[in-house]
């Protein structure tokens, strides 16, 4: 994982740049993807796994992961679930509306050193969004002879499966994609069950696998356990963790997880025993 770069000189660290919504796509009933284009100055391009602080002016600011790798447009893409005042304002913003952007912050998935062996991506719910940019890069690499890529997606029900356009694109690029839902109406032909149940059947070679995991914390813990049980070395598992963030710049103190400041030392961290203890003991 690569460390975040520092702020552009002369920009007060907590002040966002103005962006306009240029495209909006409703993913599910409560998940929206926004593409944002800079009004004047742009933030530095982010790496998959990093996040921006997005401002809904007058409502507040929230940490939202990038959901696409940077491209030539200079636009940033975020996929947001409507869960609170700021995310609600962002999800309901329309093309032409102003949104503030600061970033990119935090560590990333480190895709540069992936794509030689197998890569397994495990996503739960909105956790697919921070992974999407990494899968994009890996899928493109796969097209040109890169390593195998396996994507296991868990969602609550079929209507909650998001980023369908991306899922189709990854399949077309030769990525093995499996989707499972917690519960489905009669007649549903896809898989029903936990995302961890998809892992044994994916067909990756555990000893030469790197795993990228994001989703609800409990899903992360069980997915890591399942991966390790299958023979993936714990040090080959990278997870993206979430805590309350008010600044993204290691100044506000909210994103503590034991010795980690997740906006600075995360959100993407390599799995280890200490992390397992932190997630199960320290904060309960």
């Amino acid at each position, binding site marked *: 994982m690569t*460390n*975040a*770069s*520092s*702020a552009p000189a002369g920009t*007060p*660290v*907590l*002040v*966002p740049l*103005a962006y306009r919504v240029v495209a909006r796509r409703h993913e599910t009933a409560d998940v929206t993807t926004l593409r944002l284009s800079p*009004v004047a100055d742009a933030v530095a391009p982010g790496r998959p796994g990093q996040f921006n602080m997005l401002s809904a*002016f*007058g*409502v*507040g*600011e929230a940490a939202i992961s990038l959901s696409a790798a940077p491209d030539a447009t200079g636009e940033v893409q975020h996929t947001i*679930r409507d*869960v*609170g005042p700021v995310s609600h304002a962002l999800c309901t913003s329309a093309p032409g509306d*102003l949104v*503030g952007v600061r970033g990119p912050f935090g560590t990333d998935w480190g895709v540069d050193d992936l794509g030689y062996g197998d890569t397994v991506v495990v996503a739960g719910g909105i956790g697919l969004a921070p992974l999407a940019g990494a899968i994009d890069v890996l899928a493109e690499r796969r097209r040109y002879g890169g390593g195998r890529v396996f994507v296991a997606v868990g969602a609550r029900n079929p209507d909650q499966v998001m980023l369908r356009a991306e899922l189709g694109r990854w399949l077309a690029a030769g990525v093995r994609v499996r989707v499972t839902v917690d519960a489905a109406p009669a007649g549903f032909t896809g898989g029903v069950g936990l995302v961890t149940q998809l892992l044994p059947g994916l067909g990756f070679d555990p000893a030469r696998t790197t795993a990228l995991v994001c989703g*609800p*914390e409990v899903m992360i813990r069980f997915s890591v356990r399942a991966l390790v049980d299958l023979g993936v070395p714990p040090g080959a598992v990278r997870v993206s963790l*979430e*805590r*309350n963030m*008010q*600044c993204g*710049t*290691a*100044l*506000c*103190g*909210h994103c*503590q997880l*034991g*010795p*980690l*400041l997740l906006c*600075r030392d995360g959100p993407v961290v390599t799995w280890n025993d200490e992390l397992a*203890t932190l997630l199960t*003991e*320290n*904060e*309960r």
Partner: protein
Amino acid sequence: MRLDPPFLASARVLAAGELDTLFAALAARGYETLAPGVRDGVIRLVPASGAAELPAGMHDRQAPGSYALEDGGDGELFGYAVGPDSLKGQLLPPHQSVLRATPDEGGLRIEPAPTEAARVAVVGARPCEVAATTVLERVLIGGAYPDPGAAARRKALFVVALECRRPATTCRCTSFGTGPGLEHGADLVMIELDPPPKRGGDPGAHRFLVRAQSPAGAEVLAALPTSEATRRDADRRRDALGAATRAIAASSNPEVVARGLLGHIEAPGWEEIASRCLSCGNCTMVCPTCFCTEVRDRSDLSGTLERERRWSSCFEVGHSLLTSGPVRRSVAARYRQWATHKLATWQTQFGTTGCVGCGRCVTWCPVGIDLGAEAAALAGTGAASRRGTT
């Protein structure tokens, strides 16, 4: 303590009666001066223009959950330990504007809040809070994203520190190496050399030993009507600091406590503390190194918005709020977060301890929880105090 010649060479003596010249020198250099003053029965940092405004003769009695001032009638000008204010407020104001945005032809005009700082001098800062300022500098200015406001305010801050003759019962600086003397970090450091003379005595006997610890301090010191310090003056300082050191209770070795705390994350003692802790956050507000802030937007009917950053506390339930709810729901989890962060994980995050042993969190805890004693007990290195549970 062996006093080497450089100490005497750098030390000057300022008569208490000439203290106004310090205030005047600071004013002449464009500093607004803050100094100790009594407000609501407490020593606070307040604007001051001369020595006559200092709380002469006031002495504090501090204990877990308790603070009281009494007038000793002795004319000692700095005869008290730390009050609730610290230099933190000078680097990181409790409230500060981040930006203002106003509607502007279909867009928003975003104006960052100015980050320039006015010159402020603090007279009477204690060695432990000078140490705390060094800690805060690492957090706020030493990372990848330096806080430009804090950097500007630090640069504009002139610190006149007072070495401590009268520690409070809550002081623990000797365990953290942050007092009662100060060898670096201030612009000027003084000690009230002799107790003021009794009525009818020689007022010239009430003197300060002053040293400069920065070029700016040396420049101010050169402008004051000081006289040479003698070996006897240096001895008197040594004796006063020695007496203060002996008066300050030792707490357990901070490094041992840090390791022990992290090894006792599941100890039942956390629940016991939580049964007393009110989760009020007083400890974090008075702590000279606690730096948590939150950002809030406020808008008016014209569409103008002001984004504000203000102090927040890990004792607030909302501090750890996620979509799934707060991460640290119980008081025990929040107390553990504060204690383990302050005493242990801070070291990993910022390469320094988060506690300087000033004792403010103990004095201003409404139920008198003694962080150091509790932490030592939890870490298995000492017995906890069980005072102040009424």
